């Protein structure tokens, strides 16, 4: 299956975890990917892993100069952009919403919501031709004790997905994925140690998610297989959010 042959995709926050798994999946189906990440070393390692099919550009997702540099390089090297995955996200604070510092709240919104809008705006200006997927979370669908304000930011990203879907139709499709706990560094505190078994036991499929569990659905939503899907949030949670009483 080579759904992305000849296409160029930009994936933010792709040094590791879900972003890297998405990059690997798209490359395996023929894409060339541009990946970003904060740390040059881990980004370079990801680029290496993707063979000759990736260009890594290090920078912070909420840095306008970094963003401008990325689009300048896309224009110069490829002259086209087919897909955008707004995957960069942060969760610097665990705990209840009332206990989070306002400065941290602003930083979370800046990276998880405002930056996603800015990357989208720049991508559209650069001629983005096909589709966008935003990486949200089930924490954006209902209260998630422990990651309270992260959840608020992801709820905003889900609404932004719908707004942009309507604004960018019919030319560009915009969808989101809402994974539950996935084995990534961002979520590590949620599944460390004996927490994983307790978590897995409440998921109907009996395990937490792996980055590849998200990469398949993201590739589907980006591809022409989903040509009629826009403004949708695809939940990927092993059935957890379908449970009323276990």
């Amino acid at each position, binding site marked *: 299956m080579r759904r992305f042959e000849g296409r160029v995709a930009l994936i933010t926050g792709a040094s590791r975890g879900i972003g890297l798994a998405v990059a690997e999946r798209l490359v395996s189906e023929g894409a060339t990917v541009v990946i970003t990440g904060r740390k040059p070393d881990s980004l370079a390692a990801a680029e290496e892993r993707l063979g000759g099919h990736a260009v890594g550009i290090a920078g912070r997702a909420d840095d306008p100069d970094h963003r401008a540099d990325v689009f300048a390089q896309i224009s110069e090297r490829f002259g086209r952009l087919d897909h955008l995955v707004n995957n960069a996200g942060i969760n610097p604070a665990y705990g209840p919403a009332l206990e989070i510092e306002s400065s941290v709240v602003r930083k979370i919104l800046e990276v998880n919501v405002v930056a996603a809008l800015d990357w989208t705006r720049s991508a559209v200006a650069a001629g983005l031709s096909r589709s966008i997927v935003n990486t949200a979370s089930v924490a954006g669908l209902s209260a998630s004790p422990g990651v309270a304000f992260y959840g608020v930011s992801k709820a905003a990203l889900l609404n932004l997905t719908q707004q942009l879907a309507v604004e960018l139709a019919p030319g560009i499709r915009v969808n989101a994925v809402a994974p539950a706990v996935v084995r990534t560094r961002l979520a590590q505190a949620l599944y460390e140690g004996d927490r994983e078994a307790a978590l897995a036991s409440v*998921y109907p499929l009996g395990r937490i998610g792996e980055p590849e569990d998200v990469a*398949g659905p993201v590739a589907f939503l980006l591809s*022409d297989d989903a040509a009629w899907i826009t403004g949708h949030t695809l*939940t990927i949670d092993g059935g957890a*959010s379908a449970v009323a009483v276990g």
Partner: protein
Amino acid sequence: MRLDGRVAVVSGAARGLGAAFARALHGAGASVVIADLLDDDAAALAADLGDRALATHLDVTSPESWAATVEAALAAFGTVDVLVNNAGIANAGPIDHYPLAKWDAVIAVNLTGVFLGVQAVVATMKAAGRGSIINISSVEGMLGGSHLHGYVASKFGVRGLTKSLAVELGPDGIRVNSVHPGFVRTSMTSRLDPTAVPIPLGRPASPADVAGTVVFLACDDSAYTTGTELVVDGGMIAGVPHS
């Protein structure tokens, strides 16, 4: 291919959405059982697909009919990995003139038919330790629609049944999801005016536009996706309609 070696049963597969699903699943490598009341159309599609295709007579409101279709699937292909509960009907009327017979008919096919289909395949899927059940609901399983009382209730019912099944069958490795198509051009929607329906992507769908979603849910790309809805509607319900 993504579905090599897999066996899929599709109800209402002789034409419309069901035929598109059967074609797409077959094209992705699966063996397909084209189960329908319309024997001639089902046989013609099976003949057109050639190898790995079987037509069966199926009345989804009958447990015996389901048993016969699953037996035929097992005899021909050895197992059932994927069930697509697609058969459906629609009727309409204002609530004060909506007869009980219409209500009963649409609930029987659209909701009880799904329940019976799952009952017919679940033992086989449990024994295999895997399976994907794909229930075709509708955008009317997400929102209301004037005059469509039985249809809306049945499609919300399918969405709810999907969740109880996903929660119960997850530990057996069986995934259950619902698909919610918007305005698709089929014989069921032939009387609707496409220009009267606001669709951000600008046109009604063809059945093939929905088929990619069914293949995605049937294959391992959706290995961690269960108990959820996939809305395939060109963006129709993403926004509040404004005229």
